[in-house]
């Protein structure tokens, strides 16, 4: 039972982190119809910038903000500089974003080296408690709370604000949004920047969560986040949440009992979901038009 609880909590913690990345990825896909294979690269750079800044200044909150900012800046540059020319060119987008992913992953080695950096947990978040035989790690709980807050803010944004209504409408029919006199092109940039900022922010959180940052962390996270988005349904933030928790908890159990199978099982979950519900758990079946 104690092991069970520990694994569940660990899985939810991982899931909270996954959610931050998957939410941006799914929003970007839903509205812009772009599968951003560079999303993990934004996460990577957020992680490195935050870790570097924390090492220099020891300002944790500032490091989080800078991580998010690094993601947003890279995201805006990508959307305005590259993707803006390639809307409705599916194959080119995939190639371009994959290329950006490789560049971002390699380039991080130039200033920071190939071996990764230590990412210490700030002292005020590094407590842990033993309740019965269950270990409660403060930073893990912090991540879970942050993930939940981000979900609530996104939910509020999408359901209650004008921007949210425009985004939801744009997911369904971007051309009609434009015919309604709404500058959809700027909304695209805002959404891409938002998703990119979330990825950078997740990177900044992930450093202390895993204890280090490495050049390969972006690619690993990219794969996981992509699987989550497919499971949850492309374009659905709720789906991203459920998918993240599902993948987080399943991976947590598998890596405890059958470590060698953990990636396989995640992909298996995806395959089953695709077989039973091809549009994902919360996805809308799209009309072919």
């Amino acid at each position, binding site marked *: 039972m104690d092991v069970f609880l520990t694994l569940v909590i660990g899985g939810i913690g991982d899931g909270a982190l996954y959610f931050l990345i998957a939410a941006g990825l799914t929003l970007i896909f839903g509205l812009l119809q772009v599968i951003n294979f560079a999303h993990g690269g934004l996460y990577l750079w957020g992680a490195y910038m935050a870790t570097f800044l924390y090492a220099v200044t020891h300002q944790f909150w500032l490091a989080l903000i800078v991580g998010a900012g690094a993601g947003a800046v890279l995201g805006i540059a990508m959307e305005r500089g590259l993707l803006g020319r390639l809307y409705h060119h599916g194959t080119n987008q995939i190639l371009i974003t994959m290329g950006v992913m490789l560049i971002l992953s390699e380039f991080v080695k130039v200033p920071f080296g190939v071996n990764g950096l230590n990412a210490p947990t700030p002292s005020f978040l590094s407590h842990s408690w033993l309740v019965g035989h269950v270990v409660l790690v403060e930073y893990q709980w912090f991540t879970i709370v942050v993930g939940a807050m981000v979900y609530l803010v996104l939910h509020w*944004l999408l359901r*209650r*604000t*004008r*921007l949210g*209504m*425009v985004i*939801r*409408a744009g997911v*369904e*029919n971007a*051309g*009609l*949004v*434009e*015919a*309604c*006199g*709404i*500058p*959809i*092109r*700027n*909304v695209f940039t*805002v959404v891409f920047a938002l998703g990119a900022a979330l990825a950078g922010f997740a990177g900044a959180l992930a450093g202390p969560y895993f204890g280090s940052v490495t050049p390969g962390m972006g690619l690993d996270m990219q794969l996981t986040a992509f699987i989550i988005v497919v499971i949850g349904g492309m374009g659905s933030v709720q789906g991203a949440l459920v998918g993240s928790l599902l993948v987080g908890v399943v991976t947590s159990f598998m890596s405890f009992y059958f470590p060698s199978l953990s990636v396989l099982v995640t992909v298996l979950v995806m395959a089953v979901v695709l077989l039973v519900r091809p549009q994902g758990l919360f996805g*809308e079946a799209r009309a072919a*038009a």
Partner: protein
Amino acid sequence: MSSESVALQAENISVSYGPVHVLKHVSLRLMVGECVSLIGPNGAGKTTLMGALSGGVPVTGGRVLLNGQDVTAWRAEKRARAGIGRSFQTTHLFPTLTTLENVYLAVQAREGTNAWDYLRRVRKRLLDEAESRLEQVQLTAHRDKPSGTLSHGDKRKLEVAMLLALKPNVLLLDEPTAGMAVSEVPGMLQLIDALKAQRAYAMVLVEHKMDVVMQLSDRIVVLHQGQVLAEGEPDEMMHNADVAQAYLGGRHETRA
């Protein structure tokens, strides 16, 4: 003909996709209060011309003037705010959004467009305006239903409500009766006729049903292979030999 009364003018519009010339130097002048129908066989370039006027299709040559102002470089969204309202050939709605939200989206387009405006909550005043638009087309009963669940006729009514919510002075109607049941067509015609009677809108109508065209148009422009083949009053067009040759396949047709 004073220049104030010209609502929309297309000068020498050309549209090409690579080597394919879809429109070749098409000019069109639309007066306030006038209804002009575009007719022509499939592939003549009617919908492309509508796109060029609304800003959805980039032109490779020529100019579009709205109330005398050159809007050729404007994106569709900016032209919509300036008064060009466009409906689409196939039903264009946001199916999972409610009927009211659909209209709200069109109503709020005239509000500010800076980032801060977008982060504000959905506003009561605009919701009220959206509600009254729904009332106009008798869809109040369906306000909280996802628009995707409406009947086809109601969907097209909702599209009209959204179009009018933009407060346009130019209406581009691309086959407003397409896909409608025969029993639903008269309702739509009445709606368009009522709009026309207000004399406030300049309308371009693309339509295949010739009885609709004859009933609503002040002028007919015949497009053929991307060029204006002929233009004139409805009766005149129906008796034009070139038009009969190109559009009606050589068959001389008169109104029933």
